[in-house]
């Protein structure tokens, strides 16, 4: 895998402390990516989803299966439950 733009929203953005970052990642799926990020610092533990469900979108497509491949992805977003309307 190469460089991927990671985007964080709402409570996840606040916990990680930034809205986005460009990172060189090794993981091939979301589950591994979450592990990989957690090894980078405690702030990423929010992605474990202990306090609320964590949703993700790969290249602006919502993904529910964390084992979905992220190979070739250019943008991955993480966000908490949505509260529109």
């Amino acid at each position, binding site marked *: 895998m190469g460089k991927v733009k990671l*985007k964080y929203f*709402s409570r996840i953005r606040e916990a990680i402390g930034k809205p986005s970052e460009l990172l060189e990642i090794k993981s091939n799926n979301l589950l591994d990516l979450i592990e990989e990020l957690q090894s980078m610092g405690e702030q990423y533990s929010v992605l474990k989803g202990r306090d609320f469900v964590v949703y993700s979108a790969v290249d602006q497509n919502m993904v529910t299966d964390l084992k979905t491949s992220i190979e070739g992805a250019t943008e991955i977003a993480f966000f908490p439950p949505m*509260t*529109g309307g």
Partner: protein
Amino acid sequence: MKNEIIVAVQKIDFDLNLEMESLKAKTKKAGAVVFFVGKVRDLEDDKLQYLEIESFEELAKSQIKEICKNAADRWDLEYILVKHRFGRLKLNDNIVLVVTSSKHRKNAYDASVYIMEYLKSNVPFWKKEVANKTQNWVENP
């Protein structure tokens, strides 16, 4: 029925009268129009300073388009419009507008409810209520 779908995710407010005029120019066969407006409300036990709405704009727009297409498949509609705002809003400001129009009222009513239900928890918007004493991310009941 041929239908028109209009979707916007925007900072600026919408004008209900202009939306109605625009709809009238495009819907000749529809006799029913349902407007749903969601607006900023005050809190139960604190005074709201403002509501901050965060959005993942591109994904929000595509998710709303998808639900509008689903509604158009399910009900006979001539016109569907959804405009959802983001940014800092104050008490009573408009948040969301859903307009559905059909030949008779039932389709427009049912489609409006369907679209709003979906919008509440499937489109990437997040609301933070900033009040005098508290700041809270809104959670769906």
